[in-house]
């Protein structure tokens, strides 16, 4: 992290955040900090506590413990003022089905006490920016999934927020629709918009996020830059032996001189490489089902949070 970034104005500062629902501890003391112009991604399996963290920032869930500061406004007192400066794209589509595309933006602007004249002007600009101009008088039911998501984004920007919260912004979209949203979010990022993102698409995170926090079971288990995290915690490359599990000892012995880490899941053997390993290269030729590829955030995510299905 450079000196310049460290000097940046702190937009979000959460310390020791805890939330208990009945007997279920959803958050067990999480710290999150975000500086102006940064994009921070919260990663974690379903139920890890990402959405709860966001809902606490919105005041829809009240924290059991911990301190929250947004733009130097201390919660709960500063909540209302903070919300004037935030824009949210929720995970679940909650556009107003009683209103048209354009009206959705105008009515939403009114919740922020934006004058009608300003709201109209901004709404037109946003419809243009998100390629929704031809849909302005359409009712919400007639929009495609991608159009709805774009409108949710447009709505989140109607108050010119200083912090945008994106809770799985491209969930359930086809690749084209997702790409368009990524492009728009990149544009916003270049303009210096601060973003808090949750996502399950590692590609999305790698494209947009400057920093990542991996959350599991209500605890932050890793934090850093997307590339840095993968490199530090996993290595540069991964070799996957699809039937390597039963030859683990043999392989390990052979690779003794290399800086590696191994993991077995079902019949597969994963070998994580920190640096190059000549022995491995010669070993690969003696196996039939082997793939060697660069390590990604997805690999790290699965390594840290487990490959097994969480919700059974």
């Amino acid at each position, binding site marked *: 992290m450079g000196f310049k970034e460290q000097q940046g104005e702190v937009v979000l500062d959460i310390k020791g955040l805890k939330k208990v629902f009945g007997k279920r501890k959803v958050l067990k003391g999480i710290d999150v900090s975000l500086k102006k112009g940064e994009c921070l991604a919260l990663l974690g399996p379903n139920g890890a506590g990402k959405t709860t963290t966001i809902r606490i920032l919105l005041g829809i869930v009240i924290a059991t413990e911990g301190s929250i500061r947004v733009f130097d406004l201390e919660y709960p007192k500063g909540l*209302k003022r903070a919300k*004037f400066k935030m824009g949210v794209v929720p995970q679940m589509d909650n556009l*107003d089905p009683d209103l048209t595309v354009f*009206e959705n933006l105008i009515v939403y602007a*009114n*919740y922020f006490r934006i004058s009608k004249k300003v709201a109209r002007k901004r709404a037109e600009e946003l419809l243009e920016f998100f390629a929704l101009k031809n849909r302005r008088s359409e009712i919400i039911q007639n929009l495609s999934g991608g159009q709805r998501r774009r409108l949710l984004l447009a709505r989140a920007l109607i108050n010119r927020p200083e912090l945008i919260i994106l809770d799985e912004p491209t969930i359930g979209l086809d690749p084209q629709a997702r790409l368009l949203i990524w492009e728009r979010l990149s544009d916003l990022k270049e303009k210096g918009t601060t973003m808090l993102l949750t996502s399950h698409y590692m590609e999305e995170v790698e494209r947009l996020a400057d920093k990542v926090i991996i959350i599991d079971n209500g605890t932050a288990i890793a934090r850093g830059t997307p590339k840095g995290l993968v490199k530090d915690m996993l290595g540069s490359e991964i070799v996957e032996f699809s039937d390597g599990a039963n030859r683990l000892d043999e392989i390990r012995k052979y690779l003794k001189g290399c800086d590696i880490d191994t993991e077995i899941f079902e019949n597969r053997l994963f070998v994580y490489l920190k640096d190059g390993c000549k022995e491995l290269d010669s070993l690969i030729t003696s196996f039939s089902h082997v793939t060697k590829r660069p390590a990604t955030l997805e690999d790290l995510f699965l390594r840290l949070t487990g490959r097994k299905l969480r919700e059974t």
Partner: protein
Amino acid sequence: MFQVWYRNLKVWLKHLQASLIGNLGQPFLFLLAMGYGLGKSVPEIEGMTYLQFIAPGLVASAVMYSSAFEATYGSYTRLSTQGTFEAILMTPISVYELALGEIMWGATKGLVAGLIMLLTLPLFGVFPLVSYVSVIPILFLEGAIFASMGLIMTAIATNYDFFNYFTSLVITPFFLFSGIFFSLDAITSPLKEALSVMPLANVVILSRNLCYGKVGNVEEMLFEVILTIIFTLFFGALATYLLKKRLIQ
């Protein structure tokens, strides 16, 4: 608060016709059936024809139906399937403003229904005094009371069927036993006293007295007005509390 109210107004203006006919149908039909039909064979009550007797009460009942309906089926749709409440809570609007906006909106819809009913009374040969306009704030408060009751139901409802209890156990009994169709004096004490301090009964008395200028007993009138204000505050506060409990975890 006014932003929430404005949102609902905007939507309502889009389907004005269906909404008005839906809410006004019942009191209108009652006025026709009871006033014209039954009224022919009913002797005068308290010096009024039966039609004159029931008309001001039916104005009050139009308010009740419209407000209660809006704050149950309408508000619950916004709370559950549409996610409108959640979308609003993502903005600087607080849950208190949301609740008050919804109550105000329900009251507004009730008042509109009551006013239309009131304005059509001459069609039935019922001519209220000009001073009857003083009932308007009372009708608005009545609307707020029943919108609050409806919102209480919305805050604890798990599905639409739940509102059947509210309709059949609260709204219908209020409609039938609030002195709209018969004078509560016909009932023996203490049931009479109990019925006359229920919501709606107070407004029916006020509405009838103001309609025909029978403001003789000022103390009684004042009591009914104070009762209406107390109901408004009590149910409004309870509705707000329960909605907050439902929406903020």
